[in-house]
């Protein structure tokens, strides 16, 4: 008899255990920290009126003006705004698009500088002379998230031999104001 009751007690205990398990909970807390810093991003886009850029949409694009001359036919998108007694200038438009993230900056300053010195030809961006010696300010109040159109101009002397390849790099730097 006693033995039977003992078994019953054990059975009750098992039921009780199962019942208490069903309601079990436990908690833990994960504190997450992170710091967001502001940033801006510059890309080049092809302009509808200019030569299509290779690498448009990126921050490393190529503007190929093709064959240029003082009086001959130019590639589509290339213009010849001036021809003087000793030089001619060709130009093509391209767009600079600077976007901001996590920033309260209202606008940006855009500067341009030639990657290597050019003692023969002269270069402009947006009408501003650009050399390799220092960065020239192309815009002091650039608008974010907008394709800002700039003409890249190249002035070549008549004395330049035919079939001369002209190549240089223009480094652009945008700084949030």
């Amino acid at each position, binding site marked *: 008899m006693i033995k039977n009751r003992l078994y019953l007690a054990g059975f009750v205990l098992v039921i009780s255990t199962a019942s*208490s398990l069903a309601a079990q909970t436990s*908690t*833990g807390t*994960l504190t*997450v920290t992170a710091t*967001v810093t502001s940033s801006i991003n510059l890309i080049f886009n092809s302009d509808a009126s200019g030569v299509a850029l290779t690498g448009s949409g990126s921050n490393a694009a190529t503007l190929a003006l093709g064959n240029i001359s003082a009086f001959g036919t130019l590639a589509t998108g290339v213009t010849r705004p001036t021809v003087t007694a000793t030089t001619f200038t060709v130009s093509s438009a391209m767009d600079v698009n600077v976007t901001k*993230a*996590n*920033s*309260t900056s209202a606008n940006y300053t855009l500067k341009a500088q030639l990657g290597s010195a050019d003692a023969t030809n002269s270069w402009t961006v947006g009408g501003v002379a650009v050399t390799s010696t220092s960065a020239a300010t192309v815009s002091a109040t650039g608008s974010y998230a907008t394709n800002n159109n700039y003409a890249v101009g190249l002035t070549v002397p008549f004395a330049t031999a035919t079939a001369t390849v002209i190549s240089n790099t223009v480094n652009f730097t945008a700084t949030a104001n």
Partner: protein
Amino acid sequence: MDSVWLGILTVTAACAALSAAYGGQGVVVKRGAKALSTTISTPVNSISVQLVSLAEGAALTGAAGGSWDLDLGDFSFTAAPRKPNVATRRLASSLLVSSEFGVLVSSSATGVTATLLALLQSQQAKYSVRIDGILLESTPVPVASHLRTGVVTRHRIELELPVTLTEKEGRLSNAIQFSVVSE
């Protein structure tokens, strides 16, 4: 009027396990009374949750008092994250920052499975936090179920930060409270 511990093997075994885990409570039977008087101290079984660092995730620190810290470090929309095992992904108007961590559910009982719930202690309108893709709110939401005890499961925490979140608001700190409930 001696007090004896039950000697029924199956029951005693269960009691012994519970006693070890929950402070020495057990089944006491008083012998000699007219009817056997049985006193059962109902064991308070428990389930527990731990967060653990994963090799693929950012390191968790702390753990004192069931509280862990996860520092995702500095990041921006354009620069790669500086912390190891923290990933970022750019969307059109927001940045996703993510890392992985492990959850270990333990129980003294075998065969127990659990549901993992999470809530964000401070609901933010400026950014959102997800666990395994599930948006956290100020009330608990289930983020995983059928978690087996004794097994570390992998989970992903993801912060979505809009580009409109300014640097003045950029120091983020929030707590996620995890709960496990036995199923």
